[in-house]
């Protein structure tokens, strides 16, 4: 676990760079986390992030299928928004833990 200054705030991250406290997240933090992954966040990115955060808050297990059925975008779209990690990268940028599902 490490503290890192992101968007002027001190944020605690685990060794894989996921936030350990989802409440430290805000949109500015997301933008900086996304930049590190080479992603420029758009409106649609934020919709996905909101969806993920809401599901996480409700204690749901997240799968790419669930996000694909959210109505925000389809699975192909998710791969375009978060290349190389449609669920893992998006969760990281959303400030929630790494997904534990295999699907």
């Amino acid at each position, binding site marked *: 676990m490490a503290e890192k200054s992101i968007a002027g705030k001190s944020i605690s991250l685990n*060794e*894989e760079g996921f936030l350990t406290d989802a409440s430290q997240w805000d949109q500015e933090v997301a933008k900086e986390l996304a930049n590190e992954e080479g992603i420029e966040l758009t409106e649609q990115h934020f919709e996905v992030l909101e969806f993920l955060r809401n599901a996480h808050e409700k204690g749901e*297990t997240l*799968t*790419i*299928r*669930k996000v*694909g059925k959210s109505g925000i975008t*389809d*699975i*192909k779209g998710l*791969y375009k928004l978060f*290349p*190389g*990690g*449609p*669920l*893992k990268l998006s969760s990281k940028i959303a400030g929630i833990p790494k997904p534990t*599902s*295999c*699907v």
Partner: protein
Amino acid sequence: MSAKEESPLKKVCIICAKGTIEDVYATLVMANGAVMEGIEAKLFFTFFGLDAITKKRMNKLHTGTVGNPALRMPGGLPFPSLLGMLPGVEAGVSTMMKSQMEKLDVPPVDEFIEMITAGGGELYACKLGMDMFNLEKEDLHDEVRDVLTVGDFYAMCGGENTQIIFT
């Protein structure tokens, strides 16, 4: 768990030669898991594995209820092979397996294939297997790219940090 591999996996080539629910899903879960991690995935379906990409059969796969010592009753008791022989039992068990997977958000085969190809995974059918079972390209799911010989498939399996997996 930190996964800081010095030389991460770049590509998996997965061969599916059997057509039971568990064999096909092992292939699909591994392939989908790969593309979701940014790992390239190429799938080769042969022999009974072709059922997984044959339109008429893909969503009607079964799990074997005879000679399957790992199969258990819902309560955990061993599943007798004699019972598995009765008409309808295999279909019933298979339906139960599928509903269990649906609960875990594991999609039906056709949808799973679309998820994999949406992530850039590629599906191929084996020429020899197709000839054996008298199948035509039109019989296969639209997302299947091509019908290949073994040699063609191996030619796609080159490159650093590539693994061939036989499920």
